[in-house]
């Protein structure tokens, strides 16, 4: 019986909720380095799931496998019931509109204004909103949601780190995704801006009823936003449970995260 079976107590009643992400036995190696060694994960509808792991433990690799940016060596990834390995490019692009991805460094397009950054995902997927959609309204609404309506004509270089993260979040939301993947949402930000981003994530989750997968090594962030947590150690889902359950664990490897 592994550690995750010991700790997981199913404190959230997932069984009645729809399964949004289902990862089974995911493996990925780079040469002789085995990053993921049979990682398993389930994310349910409306759930905030935090994955914690040390730097280089494979968190970002796992999240990139989820959206098809990387190909796993083996294993199975189902997003809203669809096995991404069996999808063609058009189907994958269509599925990606249901998944928002907030990158660690915001990844705003340098050569475009904030408005153009937000309009970019709409170019191919306007049909999601019907034929008579006004893109400028959608952009304005997305920016208002993150409190940055006044930055619409600014270039990314004119924004602070926190503002960039919020604009990136607005861009992530513009296609109304059902799942949002956050890759280190608070890294590189000061504590006050981190709190603002965490608060924004919670508000967005309530407003849009999204399911969120949050990768972080920020314990404060994990405590505030997580309903359930998974600890990624040695390429596997070493421990699962609520923040309180994991924080109370006597396992050395688990305790190391909460020191």
């Amino acid at each position, binding site marked *: 019986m592994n550690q995750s079976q010991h700790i997981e107590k199913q404190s959230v009643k997932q069984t009645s909720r729809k399964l949004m992400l289902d990862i089974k036995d995911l493996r990925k190696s780079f040469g002789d380095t085995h990053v993921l060694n049979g990682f398993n994960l389930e994310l349910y509808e409306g759930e905030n799931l935090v994955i914690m792991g040390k730097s280089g433990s494979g968190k970002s690799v796992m999240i990139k496998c989820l959206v098809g940016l990387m190909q796993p060596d083996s294993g199975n990834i189902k997003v809203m019931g669809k096995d991404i390995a069996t999808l063609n*490019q058009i189907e994958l692009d269509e599925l990606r509109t249901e998944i928002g991805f907030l990158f660690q460094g915001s990844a705003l397009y340098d050569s475009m204004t904030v408005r153009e950054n937000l309009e970019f995902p709409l170019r191919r997927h306007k049909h999601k909103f019907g034929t008579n959609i006004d893109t400028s309204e959608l952009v304005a609404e997305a920016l208002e949601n993150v409190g940055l309506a006044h930055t619409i004509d600014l270039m990314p270089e004119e924004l602070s780190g926190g503002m960039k993260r919020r604009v990136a979040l607005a861009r992530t939301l513009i296609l109304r995704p059902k799942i949002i993947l956050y890759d280190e949402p608070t890294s590189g930000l000061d504590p006050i801006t981190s709190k603002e981003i965490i608060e924004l994530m919670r508000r967005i989750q309530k407003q849009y009823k999204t399911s969120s997968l949050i990768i972080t090594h920020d314990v404060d962030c994990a405590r505030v936003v997580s309903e359930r947590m998974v600890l990624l150690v040695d390429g596997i889902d070493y421990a699962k449970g609520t923040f309180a359950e994991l924080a109370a664990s006597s396992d050395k490897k688990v305790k190391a995260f909460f020191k």
Partner: protein
Amino acid sequence: MSSSEKIKNFFTEIGELTYFTRRFFKEVITRPFEIKELLRQCYNIGNKSLLLVSVTGFIIGLVITLQTRPTLEEFGAESWMPSMVSISIIREIGPVIIALTFAGRIASGIGAELGSMKVTEQIDAMEVSGTNPFKYLVVTRVLATTLMLPLLVIIGDAIALYGSFIIEYSKGEVSFVLYFNKVFNSLEFGDLIPATIKTFFFGFAIGIVGCFKGYNCKKGTVGVGLAANSAVVFSSMLLFIIDFIAVFITDIFFEI
């Protein structure tokens, strides 16, 4: 790194570039076509290089005429200056030097731009938003360089000939009409057509190498510098190889 590893890496890179080029030809004929972005890139690339190409062309014309004149004067053959300068500029010097200048400006720019987009995950962001980044970033830039370089070379050649005329006008009594009559009388389709065709290949090589280096950039910000640098070196080397092949083929068909 041992020399055997360097050779292995070189051939691996050639293989990857071939694969990248094959993907370009596959993507260029499939929908959706990024017409708006292509036009934007054509404007950017053409506009960015126009002044540089004009100045380069003008200086080429001045220098060639100044350097050649004393020798022609020795033989009393100054009247041959327009035909000599025009043939050398149109056939070889214009296309090659302007393409090298263009490579320095554009290949490094594309390499650095795509490289920085790669390391800051902008390319990944584009892909997860459902846009094919290869089509949007690579296909448009390669097409733009392929289409713009021939235009720039034509403009650069014309300015080079004008530069040559200015020297001739200042040294002797030659009118604009007489000078350019001599130029056009000495030029044939065999001079113009192969020289123009090869500039399409030059433009393609500069675009594809710049994009390849940037798109496959690694090692963070250091890699961006390396991508920009190696894009210029590799594309310049490729220009000379293409030029040799073009001259060789032209010799067979036009007997230059």
